[in-house]
């Protein structure tokens, strides 16, 4: 890679005063890409995004151009574009600053993506707690309508598009794309069985594409710069720049936009290293649903392939860094309580499994665990992984299995302490309820 260590594309305008206003945006090359796009054909745009190799930034990394090409060519039913702005994966904090600082880049991306998919109505589903984003997006949508960039016959192109900003109401599972669609239809946000995939039957059973905020905000830059420009950053299979959100025990946490494939060692250098020099113990490459890494993994390239080869996942590039002062079983217990709380209850392995996992972990952390509890945890995880209805269940076991894999001694030590302190027979889990 011959690029600079940081490659601000999406984050560049964030430095400008009042970057959220249309006047600022237009001074900084904003609303140039959609003119070029509307002068082309939908097929050209889909091809461009395929050529660029843009992969979904919401966690799974599915190629965006391929996803767009699943949308039917005909318009027998209305087509919908839905933006996933539900950002709730623990550790993830990139979409919200993006929407606050540069909402017009998302809106311009929506116009281009909607045109490419022959959609005339786009919904931006924002998590309700992100109130200030919702304000900024509404204001930006209003400005875009006033400028004639939304509504009927956009800049005389004949293309119509409406954007509706929709506030969620507090449920992590609504970030899962099919649960999001149910929620947007005014229901409990519970995942749907796939197939049919949203491109065949999504919102109101009509063809729908769900994309993440960062994915769509990248689109105007690709239209302006072209696929080759985009591919100058990142790796062959994971091209482009990516916002790495670094949090936790580092000197200068924050948002750092670097080419995909950057390592934690490089990121730590950029953010001033570990806070107060206390050594690194464990970290997540992409949120709590991605298996933990340790100091052994400092040089793993953080792209979709690199993270997977090393036994984790790139996820949302939410790099949460923990130093030696943090107990792994405690951290794992906290995350498990989160999944237990957020399990939507639709399927048994996840609903019941997270409930018991949390109790076993709570008991261990309180110093009342036994060595067999470790096997019980792994056994329950085994019954959740791959057997749950949606990926929340798989994510829930990630911290536990990876935590035990790298830090079994710490779990054992908790149990030993318990045994030494207390020679009586341990209670059955849940018996105190």
């Amino acid at each position, binding site marked *: 890679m011959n690029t*600079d260590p*940081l*490659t*601000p594309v999406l*984050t560049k305008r*964030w*430095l400008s005063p009042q970057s959220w206003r249309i006047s600022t945006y237009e001074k900084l090359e904003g609303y140039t890409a959609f003119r070029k796009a509307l002068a*082309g*054909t939908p*097929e*050209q745009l889909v*091809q*461009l995004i395929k*050529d660029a190799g843009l992969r979904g930034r919401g966690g799974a990394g599915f190629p965006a151009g391929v996803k767009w090409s699943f949308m039917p060519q005909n318009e027998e039913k209305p087509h919908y574009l839905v933006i996933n702005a539900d950002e*709730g*994966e*623990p550790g*993830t*904090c990139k979409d919200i600053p993006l929407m*606050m*600082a540069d909402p017009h880049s998302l809106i311009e991306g929506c116009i281009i993506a909607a045109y490419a998919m022959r959609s005339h109505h786009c919904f931006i589903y924002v*998590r*309700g*707690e992100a*109130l*200030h984003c919702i*304000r*900024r997006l*509404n204001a930006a949508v209003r400005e875009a309508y006033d400028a004639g960039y939304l509504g009927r016959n956009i800049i005389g192109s004949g293309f119509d598009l409406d954007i*509706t900003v929709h*506030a969620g*109401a*507090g449920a992590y599972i609504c970030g899962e794309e099919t649960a999001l669609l149910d929620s947007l*239809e*005014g*229901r*409990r*946000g519970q995942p749907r069985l796939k197939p049919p995939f949203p491109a065949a039957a999504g919102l*109101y059973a009509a063809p729908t594409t769900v994309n993440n905020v960062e994915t769509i905000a990248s689109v105007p830059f690709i*239209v*302006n*710069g*072209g*696929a080759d*420009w985009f591919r*100058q*950053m990142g790796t062959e299979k994971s091209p482009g*720049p990516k916002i790495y*959100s670094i*949090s*936790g025990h580092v000197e200068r*946490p*924050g*948002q*750092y*936009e670097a080419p995909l494939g950057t390592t934690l060692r490089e990121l730590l250098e950029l953010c001033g290293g570990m806070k107060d020099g206390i050594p690194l113990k464990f970290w997540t490459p992409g949120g709590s649903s991605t298996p933990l890494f340790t100091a052994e993994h400092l040089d793993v390239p953080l792209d979709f392939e690199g993270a997977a080869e090393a036994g984790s996942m790139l996820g949302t590039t939410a790099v*949460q860094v923990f130093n030696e002062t943090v107990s792994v079983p405690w951290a794992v217990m906290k*995350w498990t309580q*989160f999944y*237990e709380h957020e399990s939507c209850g639709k399927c048994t392995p996840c609903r019941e499994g997270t409930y018991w996992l949390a109790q076993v972990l709570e008991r261990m952390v309180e110093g009342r665990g036994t060595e067999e509890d470790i096997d019980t945890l792994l056994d329950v995880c085994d019954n959740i992984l791959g057997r749950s209805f949606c990926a929340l269940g798989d994510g829930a076991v990630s911290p536990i299995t990876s935590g035990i894999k790298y830090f079994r001694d710490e779990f054992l030590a908790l149990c030993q302490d318990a045994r030494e302190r207390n020679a009586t027979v341990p209670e059955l889990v849940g018996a105190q309820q």
Partner: protein
Amino acid sequence: MTEHPEVTPTPRPGSRLAEQTHAAADDQVDVMAISPVREEGMLEESTADSPFGPDIVAKAKDLIGRYPQSRSALLPMLHLVQSVQGFVSQEGITFCAEQLDLSEAEVSAVVTFYTMYKRKPCGEHLVSVCTNTLCAALGGDAIYRRLAEHLGEDGRPLGHEEVAGTPGERGSVMLEHAECLAACDLAPVLQVNYEYFDKQTEESAVELVDALRRGEKPQPSRGAPLADFKSVELQLAGFFPEEEDAYRADVDGPSRAVETVRGAQLAADRGWTAPSMPDDAPLPEVEAK
């Protein structure tokens, strides 16, 4: 799940057959004749003391108009209901059901699914402390415990979603623990009425809630000038201040922390950039279908 919503009493099996209930009766049936109770006006829609006046009805209709199918307006409409009463009451459920032609059970099922819909009256303010792992490790758990003790009475800490003070009165505060609020680079964080207060300590958080209790409105780190729970619920429903100055003051409230632009600033300082774009990058040639 650890929290349980208020339990509704289980209906008792009775001697009345389904045919005789109101629901099963079509318009051919003289409902009054088979009803075990008779009261004046019992078949009229009960709109008399509805807390939802004509302006709220108009807003509800406006919401319905924003979606291709009316039911999609339910989530915003529940935020609207909270902007009136500070929580979702049974009347609120009935109101939404009527507006959207849904059953009350359908609306209730939705209300209980989402944490932002409160089943008990909220205070003037809602204080949400992130206690997810990263914030917790950096002090979020301690902040939550300290606030619970500080706001509690007679040695009993304030519980999750309990209110210090009297709901509806100035300075009342509902406390809750929240999951990751997508501000981990600014940990530990809390929100008041969904506006961010970043990088908190136990002391700063206690000072903040004391100010709220006194009826003051401290400026958030990121967000609009602090209002109250009900008025932000109106914004979540999709209605923003109509008066231009108030609208701009809200929208232009600060959003940029040092952390937000750290990477961009470092790159600017070091002269690092993304590769420059070509002057003209044509769209790829494809056969039109």
